[in-house]
């Protein structure tokens, strides 16, 4: 995870420079100059996506063209060729049409849920992806929730006892977990908990709900560790900043219990920069999925990507890139909408500060 420090400090140093959702909300408010409803805010956010979706689809469409040998080579996937086969493929996939009409045809297919056929397994790509989506979704959701809960608590405790032993331990955990890549952590845990002290299963998913859950414990731990350091770091910095404000001093002076100040006021204010960072958190978790599923042999999207990469299975890669893009975009919209919930000052585009 390369961006931890920049992210923390960037968020810390420039409260005036509004980025992401706050920036957009702020600009919208300025332009409209009046109160907006949540519905129209959400609608505007969705409308902003249209150019983004367009760019993503064009890029995914062109992916097969950047393969050495072009789309035909991509579709053949390294099989032996002769002129007749090539011509047949060109005719079948309309490769003789203009690029533009090919694109339109492709988008039409995608809208009907047809992402093509895997070169390697000859299964429909959409089916492959749908089959493997749930387990990846669960792993990512668990990782994000756990890392936020643990990271924010750790950051809060570290900020409370700044400079003390607890703080040092928290900072240490943060530095090590943000430096240790998930594939190393995964292998180390496999060694520790499956070979040295065989406690947990480490391969595949097993059958039945309880077995599946048991098989997912280790992968989920590794997944949650990936963004943990980063969350802790940001939470600690955000808490420290809040703790140095006047309102905390006042609240202390008035005799409001520390617990109440921390949980009620400091935490809520500190959540804003944490939320800003959670876009990066989602990306980090998604990246970790690829490695974690590979090491633990979990049949999810990450494993599918690794297989597709090994077999140069272009249609599957295209489908996965599309799904990933949609995933990141939806997550970012959710984050934007969460701002409104957490920080009333951003209410639908007006910033009262």
């Amino acid at each position, binding site marked *: *995870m*390369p*961006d*931890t*420090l*920049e*992210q923390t*400090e*960037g968020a810390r*140093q*420039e409260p005036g*420079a509004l*980025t*992401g959702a706050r*920036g957009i909300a702020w600009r919208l408010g300025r332009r409209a100059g009046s109160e907006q409803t949540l519905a129209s805010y959400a609608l505007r956010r969705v409308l902003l996506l249209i150019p983004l979706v367009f760019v993503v689809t064009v890029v995914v469409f062109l*992916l097969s063209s*950047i*393969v*050495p040998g072009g789309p035909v080579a991509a579709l053949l996937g390294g099989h032996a060729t002769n002129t007749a086969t090539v011509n047949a493929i060109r005719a079948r996939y309309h490769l003789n049409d203009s690029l533009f009409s090919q694109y339109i045809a492709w988008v039409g297919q995608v809208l009907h849920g047809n992402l093509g056929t895997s070169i390697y397994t000859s299964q429909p790509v959409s089916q492959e992806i749908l089959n493997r989506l749930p387990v990846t979704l669960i792993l990512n959701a668990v990782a994000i929730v756990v890392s936020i809960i643990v990271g924010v608590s750790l950051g809060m405790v570290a900020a409370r006892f*700044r*400079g003390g032993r607890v703080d*040092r331990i928290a900072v240490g955990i943060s*530095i*090590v977990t*943000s*430096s*240790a*890549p998930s*594939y*190393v952590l995964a*292998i*180390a845990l*496999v*060694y520790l908990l499956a*070979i040295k002290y065989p406690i947990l299963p480490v391969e595949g998913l097993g059958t039945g709900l309880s077995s599946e859950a048991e098989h997912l414990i280790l992968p989920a731990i590794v997944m949650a560790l990936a963004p943990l350091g980063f969350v802790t770091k940001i939470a600690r910095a955000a808490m420290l900043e809040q703790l140095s404000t006047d309102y905390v001093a006042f609240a202390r002076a008035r005799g409001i219990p520390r617990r109440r100040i921390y949980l009620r006021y400091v935490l809520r204010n500190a959540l804003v920069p944490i939320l800003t960072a959670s*876009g*990066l958190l989602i*990306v980090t978790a*998604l*990246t970790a999925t*690829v*490695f974690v599923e*590979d*090491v633990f042999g979990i049949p999810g999207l990450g494993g599918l*990507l*690794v297989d*597709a*990469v*090994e077999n*140069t299975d*272009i249609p599957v*890669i295209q489908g996965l*890139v599309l799904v*990933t893009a949609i995933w*990141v*975009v939806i997550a*970012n919209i959710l984050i934007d909408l969460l701002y409104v919930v957490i920080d009333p000052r951003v209410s639908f585009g007006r910033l009262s500060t």
Partner: protein
Amino acid sequence: MIAPVTLPHRRLGSRFARIPILVALAWLFVLASLVAALFGHLITHISPSAQDPFSIATLPTGTHLLGTDGLGRDVFSRVVAGSTSALVGPLVVACSGFLLSGLVGIWAGYSGGLVDTITMRIVDFMFALPGLLITIVVVTLVQGGYWLAVGILCVLNVQGDIRLIRSATLAQRALPYVEAERITGIPRWRIMYRHIGRNILPILLADFAIDFAGALVALAGLAFLGLGAQPGTADWGLMLTENEQILFQNPWAALAPGLAIVVLATSVNLIGDFIYERRRAASVER
């Protein structure tokens, strides 16, 4: 480097007294891997590619300090030899990050206006991209190797740096010395890259360290998936994949390169953090 005794934050002082030991250790490890990369072949007496069919996947012994891998190659020699590809690619990525973020970040921060807005929108967009996944896909499709991966990471690693350098430049721009220089008629580029650049140099160096650590982890990850580094080369990421299979016979074959990645990345991050914190403490003092 050492905070004065009169510093108002007593805790800050004790922080400083503590960190250098760790930072010194971190420097020591970085230097050790540099030495390994440059003179590794002189340290090890066994060639990293020599296969010994009579000792396959053995545990550490006197001759093989970390045992052997599945082809009977000496793990210790391979870890030492792997430091080359672990250092070279990340160094290139970090250097390009240093140059790009310095040029663009200072320019955007100093100019403001449209230049700044466009730069920051692009940076915001790049933050939402899963950089490593994009690298995986492109390297697969183009069937490129290590250097293609390095090239892509050079571009996709730069957004955080630019954001940070830009905000540091914004802070500098408000200082009287910049105003004075502008009035004196000192050329723009000179103010930007000579004076502001020199003042925010610690931040650029901290970025350099963090880029390095990020690229190290990313490149090793690509090698782990069988991308980038060529099969057969002594590369830490590649060793992890190859030796994952013999985790039962000789766990050190996979754990040692993994540990090397973690310790080197942690060390470099620690050094970067330290440079940055020292700079912040200095500006608090002022």
